[in-house]
C-alpha cells in the first residue's frame, strides 16, 4: 500500500503497521473480534515477502511464532481474549528465551466465552506476565486506528530492542472501528540482522546457537533470573509512555486507556462546560506503567481526586492506587458485561465525587 493517508479499520491498520516494521511471519487462528487481522495478513503478507499460516490452534500459533522469531524474523500473532489465554504458555517460553515478537489482543468480554463486545478484562493478564513463571511483556494500549498501526510498528521496535515479547492491548471497539490513518511516520524498514544469535543454515565456522528455557540447577537459573530482572528494571526506566489531555489545571484526574479514554475526552469537554475541572492521563504503556507521573498528580494540591474508568471489574485501578499511595482518594467507575461508556456515565459519578471526594459509592478500597 503506497498511500500515506488511508481510511481503514483498526485491525487492518495494525497489519499495515506490521508490514512497515518488516513483519515477515504471521500465524493465527480465527476469533471475533480480530478476524480482519488474519484475513488481511493472508491476503497481503506475501507481497511483503512474508509467510502466513492459519494454525490449528492458538497454542500452535504462538509456538510457530517462537520458531519464526528464533530463526530471526520479525513475527506477529493476534487474537482475542480466550485465544490469548491459550497463547500464554508460549509467551512464557518466548519471554524466558528472550525472543522478540509481537502479540496483539483485541480484547473481548470474558471470563469464559463471554461475548464479543469490547472489554478490558485482560489487563492483569497483559501487565503481570500472563503465563507461568516470573516475567513481563512490554504492553502498549492504543485508543485509535492510527495508534493500532503506530503501536504495532513501535512494538516491533521495542521487542527487538529488549529481546522481549511486546503486546498490543486493544479492545473490540478500536479493532472494529474505521478512521483515517496517516502512515507518513511509519516508513518501511528492513528488519535488523539477527545472525549473531538466530537459528539458521550458516553454522560453518561459528559456535552453534542454542535457545533454551531449562536450567535444572537453581544455581544456574538464579543468574538468568537476575539478568531478566535487571532488563525489566531498565525497561521500566526507559520505556514509560503516556499522554494527557487538559490535565494542567485539572482538579479531578481521569485515568483511562483504550476506547473508554476516548469517551473520557468527551466527558471532560462536557464537564468543563458545567464548571468541572477535569483532565485525562492516558497510559500508553501499561507495562511499564506510568506510576511516577500519576504520583506527581496525586501529590499536587490542586488535584482533589483520581477517577479510573475501565470496562472491567477493577484492574488498572490497582496500579493507579499503588501510584497514588493513599495521597488522594481513588475512585473506580466501571462498565460491565461488554457495555460501553457514554460521557454521562462518567460525569454522573464525577459530579458526586466533586461534592464529596470520599464518596463511598465509587471509592476504591483495596480489599
Amino acid at each position, binding site marked *: 500500500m503506497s498511500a500515506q493517508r488511508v481510511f481503514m479499520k483498526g485491525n487492518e491498520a495494525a497489519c499495515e503497521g506490521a508490514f512497515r516494521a518488516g513483519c515477515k511471519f504471521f*500465524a493465527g487462528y480465527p476469533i471475533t473480534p480480530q478476524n480482519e487481522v488474519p484475513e488481511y495478513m493472508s491476503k497481503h503478507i506475501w507481497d511483503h515477502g512474508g509467510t502466513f499460516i492459519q494454525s490449528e490452534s492458538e*497454542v500452535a500459533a504462538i509456538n*510457530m511464532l517462537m*520458531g519464526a522469531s528464533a530463526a*530471526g524474523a520479525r513475527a506477529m500473532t493476534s487474537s482475542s481474549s480466550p485465544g490469548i489465554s491459550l497463547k500464554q504458555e508460549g509467551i512464557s517460553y518466548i519471554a524466558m528465551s528472550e525472543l522478540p515478537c509481537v502479540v496483539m489482543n483485541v480484547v473481548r468480554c470474558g471470563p469464559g466465552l463471554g461475548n464479543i463486545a469490547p472489554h478490558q478484562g485482560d489487563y492483569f493478564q497483559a501487565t503481570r506476565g500472563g503465563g507461568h513463571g516470573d516475567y513481563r511483556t512490554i504492553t502498549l494500549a492504543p485508543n485509535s486506528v492510527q495508534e493500532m498501526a503506530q503501536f504495532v510498528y513501535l512494538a516491533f521496535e521495542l521487542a527487538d530492542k529488549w529481546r522481549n515479547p511486546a503486546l498490543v492491548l486493544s479492545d473490540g471497539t478500536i479493532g472494529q472501528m474505521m478512521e483515517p490513518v496517516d502512515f507518513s511516520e511509519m516508513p518501511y524498514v528492513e528488519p535488523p540482522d539477527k545472525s549473531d544469535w538466530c537459528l539458521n543454515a550458516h553454522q560453518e565456522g561459528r559456535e552453534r546457537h*542454542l535457545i*533454551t*528455557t531449562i536450567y535444572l540447577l537453581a544455581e544456574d537459573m538464579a543468574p538468568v533470573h537476575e539478568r531478566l530482572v535487571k532488563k525489566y528494571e531498565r525497561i521500566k526506566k526507559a520505556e514509560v509512555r503516556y499522554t494527557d489531555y487538559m490535565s494542567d489545571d485539572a482538579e479531578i484526574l481521569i485515568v483511562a486507556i483504550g476506547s473508554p479514554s476516548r469517551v473520557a475526552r468527551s466527558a471532560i469537554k462536557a464537564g468543563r462546560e458545567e464548571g468541572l475541572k477535569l483532565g485525562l492521563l492516558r497510559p500508553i504503556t501499561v507495562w511499564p506503567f506510568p506510576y511516577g507521573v500519576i504520583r506527581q498528580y496525586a501529590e499536587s494540591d490542586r488535584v482533589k481526586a483520581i477517577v479510573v474508568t475501565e470496562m472491567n471489574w477493577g484492574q488498572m485501578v490497582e496500579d493507579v492506587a499503588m501510584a497514588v499511595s493513599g495521597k488522594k482518594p481513588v475512585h473506580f467507575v466501571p462498565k460491565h458485561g461488554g457495555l460501553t461508556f457514554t460521557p454521562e456515565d462518567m460525569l454522573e459519578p464525577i459530579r458526586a465525587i466533586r461534592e464529596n471526594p470520599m464518596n463511598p459509592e465509587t471509592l476504591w478500597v483495596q480489599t
Partner: protein
Amino acid sequence: MEAVPEKKRVTVDGQDYELVFGRPASLTSKPFTYCPGCNHGTIHRLVAEVIDELGIQHRCVGMASVGCSVFSYEFFDFDFISCAHGRALAVATGVKRVQPDTVVLSYQGDGDLAAIGTAETIHAANRGERITTIFVNNAIYGMTGGQMAPTTIIGQRTTTTPEGRDEHRIGWPIRMSEMLALLPGVAFVARTTCHDAKSILKTKVAIKKAFRAQLEDRGFSMVEILSNCNVNWRMTPQDAVNWVGEEMTKVFPPGTYKDVFAEDQEKARADAPSKTKAQSSEKTEV
C-alpha cells in the same frame, strides 16, 4: 554405511593408528546421560551418523522436546531450540518457514508427540512441513517416573495403570505412523526398532530416507522408533530389549507406511510404456 566418512589418524601412547570407529562430528563430546540400556544413545548416534553422511551438520536445526530427551541439545552439535511439551512441530514450522535452507530435526517422545502434542503433530504433517521427526516410542513416560503413555500397550503396568492398561477405562495404544500415513502431506513414515543389530541398521536406513524427503522438498517425514525403558518397565536391560522385539512389535508392527520414493519408482514403472507412447505421438504431431 561407514560411520567415519574420512580416514582419520590417532596417536595413542606414541603409536599411530587409523581411526576406524569414532564419534560422529554431529555429536558433541559430552557423554550421554541416559540410563544404561536406554536406546536414546543409539538413536542419537544413528541420527548423527546420517547427518554426517549427508553433509548437513551446519544446516541442521534441532527441536528439543520435553521428556527424557529434553537435553538432546547437549549431545547434538548444531543449532538447537528447546520447546514446550508437545509444541516441537509448531516451533519447527516457524523455523523452517523463515529459514527454508535449514534442515529441521524434531526429536520427540511418545507423550510429547502422541498425547500433549497430537494436534501439532497431525497438522504439521498435514501441511506437509519439510521437517524430519524422530519419534521415540517406549510405551511409557520415562522422565516423570513411569506413568502411562498414549502408546502403553493393553495390560502393561505403569504407575498410573497399576493393574495394567485397561482399554475400557483408558482406551488403546495409539498408532501414530499408521495415522500419519493417511495424510497427503507426509512423504515418508516408517516404524523401526532398536532391539537387535539388524533392526538398528534398518533404523538408520529409515532415518536417512526421512532426511532425504526433507532435502528433496517432498514433505513431512517421520521415523517411529520402538525403544525400551528398562528402568520404568522394571525389567533387566536384556529382558526389556526382548520385550520390544516380542511384545511391542505385535502392537506396533515395524514397516514402511508411506514412502514417496517407492511410490515414484512404482509410478515410473507403471508409466514407462504409456509415457513413451505419449512422447512419440507428440513428436508425430509436430
